[in-house]
């Protein structure tokens, strides 16, 4: 037993190296959301295209839907936008936008220019609903199930990989 004591520092070093290597791989910007598997926060917001009409959380009951947080000032949103347009064409689930801290005219112009993948966008100019959803890095995407429970949150722009490996399997599981 004593013969192997010289291995202890080596083992300690390896343990530390593995821990630090894992730490390097973690993205500190990706904060786990406490809202996963919790009921989505209630909201009632004007439609971006029609201030006279309001959309509420309760309007979505009974269906699986996606909420994509975007803004015309958000550069990464433009990056993910073609992907959303493609995804919306498949018509798998209703896709709603949360237009976050934006100007109504800017946002409408942005959609006119780059295409509108959303069934509708909610106009959250003060960012209050964004805070209720724990939004901190636009774009963000949520999947909400039939019972109004948040099942997935993706922070940052969507990628084909995220859609194929995380979102589509989940939607299939939820039987959307």
């Amino acid at each position: 037993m004593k013969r192997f004591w010289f291995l202890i520092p080596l083992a300690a070093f390896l343990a530390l190296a593995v821990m630090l290597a894992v730490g390097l791989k973690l993205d500190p910007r990706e904060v786990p959301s406490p809202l996963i598997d919790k009921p989505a926060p209630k909201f009632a917001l004007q439609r971006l295209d029609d201030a006279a009409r309001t959309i509420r959380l309760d309007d979505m009951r009974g269906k699986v839907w996606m909420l994509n947080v975007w803004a015309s000032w958000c550069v990464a949103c433009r990056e993910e936008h073609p992907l959303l347009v493609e995804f919306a064409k498949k018509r798998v689930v209703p896709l709603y936008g949360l237009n976050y801290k934006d100007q109504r005219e800017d946002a409408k112009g942005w959609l006119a220019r780059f295409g509108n993948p959303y069934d509708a966008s909610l106009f959250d100019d003060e960012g209050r609903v964004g805070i209720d959803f724990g939004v901190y890095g636009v774009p963000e995407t949520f999947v909400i199930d039939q019972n109004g429970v948040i099942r997935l949150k993706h922070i940052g722009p969507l990628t084909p990989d995220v859609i194929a490996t995380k979102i589509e399997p989940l939607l299939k599981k939820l039987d959307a």
Partner: protein
Amino acid sequence: MPETLSRAIVALLLALCAAQVVAKEAAPEAADPALEARMTRITAELRCLVCQNQTIADSNAGLAVDLRRETRELLRQGKSDEEIVAYMTARYGDFVLYRPPLKPTTALLWFGPAAMLLLGGTVLLLVLRRRTRLAADAFEPDEEGEDLGERGDPAASAAASAAGPATGSATGSATGPATGIARP
């Protein structure tokens, strides 16, 4: 004289800059200073999620400004500090807390450094105690000890006094004795 004058002008300008900086920081956001102080105290304990090493009180990121506004509003509604912190953690998780709660998942965070110190200290103590029990000849002779021994040798010190003045002046001379006694 002109030099002292220009210096005085520079000093005055710098003082004015400083005054401006102070004025900027103290810009009052709310009419109620007591509420503002409480808001600052609460948000100084909360992490801004956009610029993660700043507090919400310090940060000028859009989200931090919004969260300060929310905090003010909650305070006006008569919410307690705990309720406001709960409001934040419900949305952003324990990550927003600069002092994370003690839970099984955060135990390593809280006790890890102390455990490492304890472990290191124990190992050091064991090694030192083992060494004191070893006989003197278990150690390699000390370099300094050798040096002293040579200096104590009358022949060597005589040689040193003879060679010292000659080689000491010519630094880096190749003829200097290798023993190190010719060091300046």
